[in-house]
């Protein structure tokens, strides 16, 4: 793996800096973040080629025995860093009888995302010209297209983690192709979009005619959408909406810092039935191609899949380092930061329901009067009260097992999490991961993956 030059020297010098820090504190660690890449944007009237949100900096963490102290800086000169680290830990009050932190089993490893086509191997001009060509196909889809927007983002994030027993480097590549069609007719405007993304390379930029035709149909469908009559409906969720439910309705509520803060109702339900026996749900940072995938978390814990719900029974939560220390439970690889300038929290990676037995045809065919829910567009967690908010961009009416052609937009799912999860009566037999970004409350944005199979359940829509 090619390690960026800024990180090469630090990989060799940071172990000494950690040794220095641990003269004063019981545990110290360092994380260096370097992010680079490109975004390309094209619409009917404008173009853009830019570096993608470049980031470079380091955070030094020092455990005092009772809390974590951190110093984050964009300064990367090893000599100046060592001096800053000494001043930093010298100012800390240490509790020699405090809680211990386990630095983990010794591990020295380098990891890199395997991609089909490394964006760096395709000249930027070629990538830009490809985007212009795809956008022109989008713009020509229909006379009602008011604007066709395309965005391609490739980024490579390299992280170096060092503590007294670990020296880890990972290079994670993420790519996202966003296609958005804005359509207009008789004074009404609407849009729909399609994402192709993952821990992948330039391969996400390939767009088929079938994809564009489906986008045209869905955008024109939303243009004619009606408001849904509020009520309880039989619902089939597309994989993206299933993922929103897994992530927002349940995932945030099993982040262990929520347990620590007394915010998680899930704490009282470990080992209990919280969902239909058809339901199993995992958080898997190693999911192949998942947008939230990584090899180790921002606190040096190697990634591994965690089963949160097995056959409807809540098994365990997701822990960052400090929450796990305070709660005295094993860590999971769930300590994630928005950037070196932010603290780590217990966070999800790729969170999804596992596939079941049913085909989508069986599921739709079983609906007497219901809605196929498309495109989760936003959601919000409510770990204490287990309320659900998932907003779907639109829903398609199903009557007697057939789509009627009526479209409703937007459609909000609300309700009580266990009621919804226990109402799941069919689980699709395919798995489709969808990329996105996840916040903690209203901030702390990290890449994440959701998705899953289709689900059939009952919910209140409005």
């Amino acid at each position, binding site marked *: 793996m090619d390690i960026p030059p800024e990180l090469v020297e630090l990989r060799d010098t940071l172990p000494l800096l950690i040794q220095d820090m641990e003269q004063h504190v019981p545990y110290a660690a360092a994380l260096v973040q370097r992010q680079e890449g490109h975004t390309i944007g094209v619409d009917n009237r404008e173009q853009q080629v830019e570096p993608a949100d470049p980031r470079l900096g380091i955070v030094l963490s020092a455990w005092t025995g009772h809390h*974590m102290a951190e110093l984050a800086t964009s*300064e990367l000169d090893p000599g100046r860093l060592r001096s800053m680290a000494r001043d930093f830990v010298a100012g800390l009050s240490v509790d020699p009888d405090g809680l211990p932190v386990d630095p983990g089993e010794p591990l020295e490893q380098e990891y890199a995302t395997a991609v089909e086509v490394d964006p760096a191997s395709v000249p*930027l001009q070629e990538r830009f010209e490809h985007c212009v060509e795809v956008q022109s196909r989008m713009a020509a889809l229909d006379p009602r297209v008011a604007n066709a927007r395309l965005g391609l983002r490739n980024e490579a994030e390299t992280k170096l983690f060092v503590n007294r027993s670990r020296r880890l480097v990972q290079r994670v590549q993420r790519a996202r192709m966003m296609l958005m069609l804005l359509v*207009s007719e008789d004074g009404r405007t609407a849009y729909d979009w399609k994402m192709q993304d993952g821990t992948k390379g330039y391969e996400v930029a390939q767009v088929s005619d079938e994809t564009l035709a489906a986008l045209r149909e869905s955008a024109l469908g939303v243009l004619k959408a009606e*408001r849904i009559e509020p009520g309880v409906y039989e619902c089939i969720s597309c994989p993206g909406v299933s993922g929103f439910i897994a992530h927002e309705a349940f995932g945030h509520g099993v982040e262990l810092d929520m347990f620590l803060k*007394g915010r998680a109702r899930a704490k009282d339900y470990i080992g209990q039935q919280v969902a239909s026996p058809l339901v199993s749900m995992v958080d898997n940072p190693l999911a192949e191609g998942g947008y939230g995938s990584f090899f180790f978390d921002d606190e040096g814990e190697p990634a591994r899949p965690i089963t949160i719900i097995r056959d409807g029974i809540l098994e365990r939560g997701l822990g960052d380092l400090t929450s796990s220390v305070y709660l005295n439970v094993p860590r999971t690889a769930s300590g994630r930061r928005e950037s070196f300038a932010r603290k780590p929290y217990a966070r999800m990676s790729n969170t999804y329901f596992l596939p079941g037995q049913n085909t989508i045809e069986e599921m739709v065919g079983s609906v007497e009067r219901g809605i196929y829910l498309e495109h989760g567009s936003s959601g*919000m967690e*409510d770990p204490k009260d287990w309320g659900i908010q998932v907003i779907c961009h639109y829903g398609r009416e199903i009557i007697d097992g057939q789509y009627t052609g009526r479209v409703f937009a937007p459609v909000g799912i609300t309700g009580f999490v266990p009621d919804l999860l226990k109402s799941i009566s069919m689980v699709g037999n395919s798995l489709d991961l969808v990329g996105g970004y996840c916040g903690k*409350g209203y*901030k702390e944005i990290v890449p994440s993956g959701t998705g899953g199979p289709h689900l059939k359940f009952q919910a209140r829509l409005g």
Partner: protein
Amino acid sequence: MLERIIRQLESHSSVHDWQVELNHKRGHQLFLVGERVETERTVETVRAEVRIFNDHAAPGGQTVRGEASFVLLPQDGDSAIAQKLQDAVFMAGLVGNPLFSLPGPADYPQVEVLDQRLAQEPRVVLDELSEQLIAAVNREPQVRLSSSECFLDVGDSQFRNSRGIEAAVQSSRAMFDFVLISNDGKNESEMHIAQERRRAADFDVPALVQRKAAQARDALRAMLPANHKGAVVLSREALLGMWTFWRTQTSAQSKFQKLSQLEVGKSVFGEREVTGEPLNLRSNGLLPFGLRSGPLDAEGLPGRDVDIVAGNVLRRLWAGQRYAEYLGLEPTGAFGNVVVPPGDTPLAELLAAGPLIHIVAFSDMHPNPATGDVVAEIRLGYAIDGNAVTPVKGGALSTNAFDAFAGAIYSLESVFLGEYQGPEAIRFAEMAVAGG
């Protein structure tokens, strides 16, 4: 650092315009779990954000403008600057947009955007805010502090561009995020508060905690609202998502990109019948300690206070230099703080004539930027019918922002919420709530 960057920018023959913003940020962060410190952090970053513009001939022969940006760090030497600049010139050369210019120097207004005390004694201010929070929560029955996060940031920014702008701004931001948990011995509920201001004192922690603790207690007995079609009152933070929609709809960029259909000189409500009070909306970049205030915006245009919508009529689209030139408009600069004049009706009257739902908190609320359609889960509200006031939670508000504002009545009382100054509450004549 700035001079080294500018020397290279000025000597590069393919850079036809440029702007540089050098930012030095210092932050202090404190995280509590209960009353115990969980994490304390200091953050210091220095980075220069450089934007370059390159004019070149398009395949059709016309001159077009390309642009690209890059970031420089203090350790970047001359050769690193040269390499990043060359990469940016290449990227800008790929892009062909209609020509536009950069703003030149202007008289920049004096705007208060720095909390002096926060800048001088950040650690003291951080501790004071936490102590005020703990003390205020301890005064509240049935309520405890779950956790809190406080971020205090001070930034020094120097802005230059190729048209001669040289400006410097020092500003502050404070972010306060905390969770209160109420408990009546049988059940628990929570209120999550996240606010941002430029000045720490603007949080008014005792009053904020008192108001939110009362809501946390109300949440304990809140029930699912009944289905409702009729008057809905939104107040304080529950209003903010609506203003985001108007900010998008009234921008020249949205107009240029066909996301907005509004026309200058015409009613923002189109053919809808307006049954409520007129909408008046200003973009005010001069509001003291407003989060969107400043002597100049990110392009270098001076901060202004301008009418956007007056008497329901779109007076102007707000526009940076680029989109102003594209549409032949006067540039206003970036949208400042939303300022809306108060109405004549006291809040108590707005809430008097039920049945209605008064919503004080949504889980999240983002109107569709093109259509104005909204669906949002109610985190806490009150069903009001005569003298009966019942806390409600769950269920979804469903409306359209254009339709809703056509029937809006504005409260007499005003609030300042960081980037909004205006009525504390708005009563909308007709909205739908999907409940039980």
